């Protein structure tokens, strides 16, 4: 069962490595497994999943099936694609291309289509509003891939969905998924206070010396240049506000700076836009990667069936994935979830 890995979290996000990773299947399974628990579930998404509605024909693809009592936040124009009997309980000022986000309570079982707010601050507010309305757990559908990376930042735990649609090669699929999970679950950084890490006005790059003083590279100086400077030999760590990209990291890796033991930190896993190669090189040079807000990956869900008819052997995929990650792995197409 998936629910034993997620019960107790106030909020949970579901994100996918690609389309057809089985996100909706996982979401439906969570709703189903929690149906008979004495709890109120609240549902929304970050932005809108592009697959949900064919805007041209106005028809909805199979949606999410909720049970009576659940709370749902979605855009005004999506209500006509929801066939659960509902009671409107609130409106919000969060606007989307499909109208403002409204909140309803399902007064019966039925299908819903999610199109929630796209800003993380709004999602946090919405989670609080859900709780005021009696929600015990908010589940956030991560929607489109890039944005979905923000969803873990606003939820306590996340379920990472992946599947045969990602790649024909099982090695690539398993390797990239394990890497994504690793980035999401990087250890908590050790050198910066919460206020320092979350400061929206902070410069893009800050260095901390071993004596605790903070050093900001002068205008026009890159991170690599700052780390190479002989007077900066005693740097204990670097904090990147915004995204830590390959472009920032490559000169550091190619230059001669001694980065053994240096901690490279960003706000959360969604800000680390680096590939496995750069990650491995960092590790090889003895540097550490960390985040201010670690995300808990509650489980990895794999879908052995791809959208274009190419399937992987479920047993092999499960076994390989379990070897590669140290969180529970389940097969979304298998009724018992392969978790037995």
């Amino acid at each position, binding site marked *: 069962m998936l629910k034993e890995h997620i019960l107790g979290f106030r909020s949970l996000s579901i994100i996918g490595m690609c389309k057809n990773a089985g996100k909706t299947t996982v979401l439906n399974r969570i709703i189903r497994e929690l149906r008979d628990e004495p709890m109120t579930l609240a549902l929304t998404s970050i932005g809108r999943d592009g697959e949900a509605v064919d805007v041209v024909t106005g028809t909805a693809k199979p949606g999410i099936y909720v049970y009576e009592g659940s709370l749902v936040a979605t855009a005004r124009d999506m209500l006509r694609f929801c066939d659960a009997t509902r009671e409107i309980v609130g*409106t919000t000022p969060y606007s989307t291309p499909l109208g403002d986000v409204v909140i309803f309570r399902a007064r019966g079982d039925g299908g819903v289509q999610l199109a929630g707010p796209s800003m993380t601050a709004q999602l946090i507010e919405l989670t609080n509003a859900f709780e005021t309305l009696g929600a015990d757990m908010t589940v956030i559908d991560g929607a489109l891939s890039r944005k979905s990376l923000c969803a873990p930042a606003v939820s306590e735990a996340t379920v990472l969905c992946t599947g045969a649609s990602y790649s024909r090669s099982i090695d690539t699929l398993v390797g990239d998924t394990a890497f994504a999970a690793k980035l999401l679950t990087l250890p908590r950084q050790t050198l910066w206070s919460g206020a320092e890490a979350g400061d929206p006005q902070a410069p893009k790059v800050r260095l901390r010396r071993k004596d605790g003083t903070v050093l900001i590279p002068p205008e026009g100086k890159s991170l690599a240049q700052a780390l190479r400077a002989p007077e900066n030999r005693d740097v204990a760590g670097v904090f990147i506000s915004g995204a830590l990209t390959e472009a920032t990291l490559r000169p550091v890796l190619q230059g001669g700076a001694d980065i053994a033991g240096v901690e490279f930190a960003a706000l959360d896993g969604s800000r680390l836009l680096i590939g496995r190669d750069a990650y491995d090189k960092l590790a090889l040079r003895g540097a550490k990667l960390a985040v201010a807000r670690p995300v808990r990956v509650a489980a990895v869900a794999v879908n052995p069936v791809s959208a274009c008819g190419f399937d992987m052997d479920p047993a092999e995929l499960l076994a390989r994935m379990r070897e590669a990650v140290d969180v529970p792995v389940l097969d979304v197409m298998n009724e018992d979830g392969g978790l037995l």
Partner: protein
Amino acid sequence: MRHEFERNIGFRYAIDLLEPASPYGRAKIAGLRFFSPDERPELERQLQNVVRTLHHLAPLAPEYEKISLYMMPLKDIRRSVEMCREAALSETELFELKRFCLQSVLISPVFARIRDASGIEGIDIRAQEEALGLLDPENARAATFFLPDASSKALLAIRKEKRALEEKLRRAADRDERARLMAERAAVAAREDVEESRLRAEICEGLRPHIDGILRCMDGIANFDFTLARAKLAAAYGGCAVEFSRNEVEFVDMRNPRVADALKERGGSFTPVSISAGPGAALITGANMGGKSVALKTLALNALLVKAGLLPFAKSARLPLFEEIFLVAEDGEDVGRGLSSFGAEIVRFNEMLSRALRAKGVCLLLLDEFARGTNPEEGALIARAVTRRLNGLPHVGVLTTHYDGVARYAKLHYEVAGLRDMDVAAVAREIAANRGDGVRVIARHMNYGLYRAQGRESCPRDARNVCMLLGMDAEILKDIAAQE
């Protein structure tokens, strides 16, 4: 240009200080309009309401706080209410309308207590009970919108059927059976949708006779909210009641919030401006940096505030409801329009004069350092001629000038005291002690008060003192002294 004028005199600043509680009040302020002379009865009623509210802010504080709290969650839904005249509303729109009606039930009794205690007139906020009854047939008073099963026999039957299918679906394990049940359920859900639409249309039909009442209620809230915001602003910055006259202006201790706030930020304080003037030209002369322009802008601001239905910031105010208010002053815009500042000034003056000559009512004509941009001899000639021309008009004109020999043609002559009573040596020592921050020190010693000039015609000679105190080149100063 109108906008530039409003910004320039601090009118926009004052309006931005208004803090309405509801979007209805905000919309009222966004659409702020100026009263024309023939709308005086309505303006007087509104100003009276603001004064009465101002006087009751303290004794009725808990009531005002309560009603503000009730107004705050309101949404401006006038568009969907208007739409309801012709079409059926969606469930979200009906939800919002129900929320409004529920709030109106809370607001109305508090408003009635405030109205009876403060004596405000011409505003009414009625609880929308009848409309609420249609939106809440079971009288549950829940702040949600839901069509109960009992709304119609058809809905009851459909929901029963749908629930039974959903119950079966919960237990069905077989994939094919689930698919069959899902399809069956979808068909029932479609029927539910049709029936719910019909019921919503029925509700909207029932609401139609109440739409005017709902919109009147929203207007009442807008007017009350705007009144309360105006009273609070008057309380914060010292607003007073207005006595309307035919063609005489008499302000005591006017203030200008924008200038006052800016001075306060720098540790200074605003010197209130008092002025009276009638038809013809009144003249303000005085030192550089002495606040002549501020005095003029403060007069423009307060006259315009009254025209917009706000209380002026003053101890007392007597003025006509001006047909138009003009200020011809140098500002940064001219350069962008490709005119020399002098040319732009003349163009504006012409426009002002031609409109004033056509006006049926009384106008306020304000000229700041008119013709300052040209040579002093000609400038003085122009200023004198303009003063004489304004004297012949039925409008209230106020000019500031540097030029000598203008005052004798003005009906009234004011002087900014400026540095007249200053101990120059003492100020020089203070500047030295302040490491040369001369502008600030001089500003502190400047007497910004406006005084009636007693028979003096020439302008004060403060400019040389200012040059000296600000450390102008010694040779130049010596030369100036030698020429005198």
